[in-house]
Structures are given as structure tokens and as C-alpha cells.
């Protein structure tokens, strides 16, 4: 349905996106993961035809979106990262405006406004000014505004940043409803790995403007099948011993955590005794050791050397 081929975007000599190729099948829910500055928003802007790529193309049903942006605009709903609403107007007035610009009018417009308000759970508060809403409620109206014209494809750019758990759950339920019951194709961008794991059947991981891995959850986790994750809970700072741990052959990656260290190590490497010796040399006591199989977060760390929220 939607495909990008070797998308490149360069701003004044700096590459924001370098050769991104991805695809979305009809009715699919696909995640786009990456830390700040990975190039996710630029990629989304190119897909939605807001900015032109330096090279590469976006194809909708095989037709170039770069050459004919109007084609994708008819079937696309974009939920931007920022709250793109008139704060001086009520939720209802905002939705009426966004409906009008999509040429909806009369009863059809009224019906769609009430439907999307139901979808985001704000029907009762539609007459209140958006400026009086909580951050979560604003984000929900931000989503509703993108759904008025019943788009075939919805692109959501970090729709749950900085909101309360109740609104977050509501937004996740809305995305599920859109995708599973209404068959809408969703491209979901987030910092939160667990959200993407819950909502998306496939995902792309981006870093430094490139797609560094893609596939289903299981496929991505297989990247780390030869590794174990060791969580060391320490009684003091682990920064000192981290350097020495990195020198060990079996240790692939070391990251400092809130109360100790997280190590990605080769499976069955039997390095525990060496770890204990290093801790003793640094006069740090190991309070607890926990070994688990890798999560997607660990895959991300392995691929990029940093966490998603870095």
C-alpha cells in the first residue's frame, strides 16, 4: 500500500535521513522506533508529503507521492507530536474547523465530530476550551482531529509523550480500535518500546537517520538469541567497574542503571566469578544478580549502544 524507497533528506549539509526504505501493508500497524534525533519525524514528514525528500520516493499504491502529494493527503491522517489545535476554541469548534477543511459539512460533519469524540472519550467535555484541558485530553483531541475524514492511513508521531496513564491507555485503546476494528493502517512512532510491542505487528528501528533493524517482535528478539542479560544490583556506583567489565571477551555491552549495571553477555559464558572478582577489587558489593532473556529494549541497546530515551 505505502512504500518508501531510499529516502534521503539533507538539511544544509547534514543528513537527517539516509536511505530509509520501509513499507506498510493495508490494515497493518507498524512501529517506528528510535531515540530523539533518529530521523523519525523527518521520515514521517516526507511520507506525509509535508517536506520533499532530497532523493528517493514515497509510493502509494505504486504512485509517487513526491510527484502527486494530493493523492496521499486524501487518505492520510497525521497526528503531529505537538498539540496542533486552537487553544482559544472549544474541542467541538476545533473539530468543526478541521472537518470543514476536509470539506465535511452539515449533518455528516456533526456525525463525524460526535463519532471521533466518542472514540477519544471526550464527548461530555466537547464544549470546553482546549486551553483548559489537561495535557492528555489535548492529545486525545489532537488525535480526534486527524480522524474526522476517516483516513485509510494514520501516522502518529509520539502521541503519548508527557501524559497521564489514563489518557495514555485511552490513546492506546483508540489506536487498537482504529487498526483492529476499522482496518486503518497505522504507522506509530514512539519512544516507548512497550507501546510499540503492544500495538504493532512489525517495527522499524531507526538511529542516526538510518533503519538499523526491522521485522516482527520475534524476529528482532532473535538478534540477541546468542546473548543473556545480566542485571547487577550494587551497593554503590558501578561506574568504576564498568570499564574493566568491558575488557572481558564475553561481555558485549555494559550500561549503568539506576542501582547498578546491566550487561549483555554471550550465552553460557560463565563469567559470574570474574564479575564478582572485579566487584571486590572495586570494593563494591553485589546485592543481587538477575539473568533474563533479551527484550526489544535490549535489542535496541545492542544495536545502537544507547537506550531509547537517550
Amino acid at each position: 500500500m505505502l512504500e518508501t524507497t531510499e529516502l534521503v533528506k539533507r538539511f544544509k549539509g547534514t543528513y537527517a535521513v539516509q536511505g530509509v526504505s520501509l513499507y506498510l501493508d493495508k490494515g497493518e500497524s507498524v512501529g517506528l522506533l528510535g531515540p530523539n534525533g533518529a530521523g523519525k519525524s523527518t521520515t514521517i514528514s516526507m511520507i506525509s508529503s509535508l517536506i520533499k525528500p532530497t532523493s528517493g520516493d514515497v509510493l502509494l499504491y505504486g504512485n509517487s507521492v513526491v510527484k502527486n502529494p494530493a493523492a496521499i493527503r486524501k487518505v492520510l491522517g497525521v497526528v503531529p507530536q505537538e498539540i496542533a489545535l486552537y487553544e482559544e476554541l472549544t474541542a467541538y469548534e476545533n473539530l468543526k474547523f478541521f472537518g470543514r477543511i476536509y470539506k465535511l459539512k452539515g449533518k455528516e460533519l456533526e456525525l463525524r465530530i460526535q463519532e471521533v469524540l466518542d472514540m477519544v472519550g471526550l464527548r461530555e467535555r466537547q464544549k470546553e476550551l482546549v486551553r483548559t484541558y489537561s495535557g492528555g485530553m489535548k492529545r486525545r483531541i489532537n488525535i480526534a482531529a486527524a480522524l474526522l475524514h476517516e483516513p485509510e492511513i494514520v501516522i502518529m508521531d509520539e502521541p503519548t509523550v508527557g501524559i497521564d496513564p489514563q489518557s495514555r491507555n485511552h490513546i492506546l485503546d483508540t489506536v487498537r480500535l482504529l487498526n483492529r476494528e476499522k482496518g486503518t493502517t497505522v504507522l506509530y512512532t514512539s519512544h516507548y518500546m512497550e507501546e510499540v510491542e503492544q500495538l504493532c505487528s512489525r517495527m522499524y528501528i531507526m538511529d542516526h537517520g538510518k533503519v538499523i533493524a526491522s521485522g516482527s517482535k520475534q524476529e528482532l528478539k532473535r538478534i540477541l538469541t546468542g546473548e543473556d542479560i545480566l542485571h547487577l544490583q550494587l551497593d554503590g556506583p558501578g561506574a568504576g567497574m564498568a570499564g574493566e567489565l568491558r575488557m572481558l571477551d564475553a561481555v558485549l555491552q555494559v550500561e549503568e542503571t539506576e542501582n547498578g549495571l546491566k550487561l549483555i553477555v554471550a550465552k553460557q559464558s560463565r563469567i559470574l566469578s570474574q564479575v564478582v572478582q572485579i566487584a571486590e577489587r572495586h570494593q563494591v558489593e553485589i546485592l543481587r544478580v538477575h539473568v533474563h532473556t533479551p527484550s526489544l529494549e535490549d535489542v535496541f541497546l545492542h544495536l545502537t549502544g544507547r537506550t531509547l530515551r537517550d
Partner: protein
Amino acid sequence: MIAVFLAQWQKEKRSPYAILLFIALGIMLTIVFGMGAAKKMSYAVYAGDGLEAPQAAEWVRLLNREGKFEFRLIEEERALRDVREGRAELAVKLMAEDYRIVMAADNPANREVEELVRTVYNEELQLRAAAASADDPQQYLEDVERRLRQPPLALEIEAADGGEPVRNDMSLQLLFAFTLYTVIMTVGYKVNAVMEERSSGVWDRMILSPLRKTEIYLGHMGYSFCIGMTHIAVALALFRYVFGFPIGDRYGMLLVVAAIYTIALVAVGMLLTGLTRTPEQFGIVLQIAAAAMPLLGGAYWPPGTVTNPIILAVSEFVPLTHAMEAMKGIALQQYGPAELAAPLAKLLLIAVLCMGVGINMVERRSH
């Protein structure tokens, strides 16, 4: 386009205070300065060194005969206290054959008063001296007065076209100046909605909708134009029908000039949108530009005050200069289409240039 226009109108209805404030500000400034400009400056005089009351009253009559300023005879103590405490710029001490001026500070306006007092004293004392040497002083004075009424040479002043010369009405000029100045702020802040929507992301949402860019721009610019025109029309109507300002019978013609001026202002607003990056930056640049426009165009001073060729050249690029010329021409000099063509063509040229460059810059930034 209508959706964009209506959204702006809905926002306005929620919070109409800014436009009301600017209209009120324009009216207030005109009342304070415009009506003040119509009144003569008044100065206190007092009798000194044993000058008798009838003699003092005679000097006051002679000083007021010029009609340039108003002189009031008050007690010495009060006159000096007013100058000392900053309530008056100066006071004139009248003596039988001399005078003294007590000033709070030396400035051009005070020197103008001093010059008038000196002239009146010189003329009167020369006349009295000549009369004293005549056989019949009273007859001499009457002869002088009669000859002054029928002078052998009469000086007539006429306009370049042979007609009656036009007197500049400062209160009317200030009415136009303050109205045209405050409408810069009104229109500017409305055009700033483009920048605000670009910052908030609403603009991108509109770009991704079936709306054409032309419709988005026209919605915004049309709305800014309507608000600007309403501002000018309300202000002029208030001064004409409520305060009775002599703006003439060609109210419709004034509105035509106002419309073209407002279009030019919208275009200047678009240029500022292209030049700045945030609504806050736009606000700062707008305030600077709005304050500079009337100063460059000499809107607050009598014609001919600004003589610096650089300032005069810069003022050619300021819409307010040409709108002032056209409005004053309509109200005071009965300008017809031929005389209005030049200022209106300049306004339209500014509009086209600023609009073209401004929109181009806004669009280039988008990419």
C-alpha cells in the same frame, strides 16, 4: 478559505480585547494630542515693578493681538510658583518699558514666545517714542492705526494653482496619524496568526488537507484586511459623527484609501512573517516597525518639518506616508483621482512587493 476565515473570527469573538484596545488607543491619542493641537498654547504674565493694572492689561491686549499664543494675567506669586513647581514652562514679567521671562528650561518653544514678546515690546515702544515727539501724540497714534488698516502695499498669499492656500489642520493630521498607526498593530497581530499556526502545527494540518495554499493565505489575509478596515472605518466614523472632526464629505473616498493602505499593511505583515522565525520575534519586530513608520513619514509634525533627504527617501517605502498624503489631500485639499493616483499607486506597489517577497520567504522556509 472560508473555514480559515471563520476560525479566525471565532478566536476573535472569544478574545476581542486586543482590537478594541487598539481602536480605543487610537481614539484616546487623537483626543489627547489632536484636540490639544487645535488649542493655542497658554502662558502666564504678571505685572512687575509697580506696573498699574490698566497698563498691564494693555500689554496683555497687545500680546494677544498677534493671536499666536494666549497670555493670561495672574498674580506674580502664583506665576512664579507654577514655573518653579513645573506646572508652567515660563512666565512673563511685564514692566512699563521692558519685560523679563522666567523659564523652567531653555527650549525652541520658549524662545518662540520670547521672540513674540520682544517684537510686540519693540514695536509698541518705537510707536510711543515716535508719538511723543509728534505735536499731537494722540492724533499721531490714530493716524498710524488708520494707515495700518489701509496699508499702501498689500501682501496676498495664494496657492501654486492660484487658489486659496490650504491651512494644515494639525488635529485632523493627528487623527489620521494615530488611526493609521494603531491599525498597523491591529493588522500586524492578525497576520501574526500565520506565524502562530506555523509554530503550533495547525498550519501543517491545513497543508495536509485538501485546502490549497492560496485558500489558506487568502483566509488569513482576508481576515486581517477586514479587521483592519473595520478599525479604520469605526475610528473615522466616530470622529466624524460623534466628535465632529472636519474630515470632509468624502468619507467613501477616505475608505478607499484606507482599504488600499490596509492591503499594504497586510503585505508588510507577510514580509515580517517571512523575515522572522517565531510569533514572539514577529511581535517585537512589528512594534519597532509600527513605532518607526509614523516617525519616518513625519505623521506627527507639520508638513515640511522632516527635511533630511535620507529619512525622506526611506519614508517613500513606508505605507503610512502615502496613506497620510492621500487622506489629508482628500480631507483638506479636495484631491481628485489625478492627485490620488500617485500615493495610491505607491501603496499598491509596496503591497505587491512585500506580499511577493514575504510569501516567497515563508514558502522557502517550509522546504
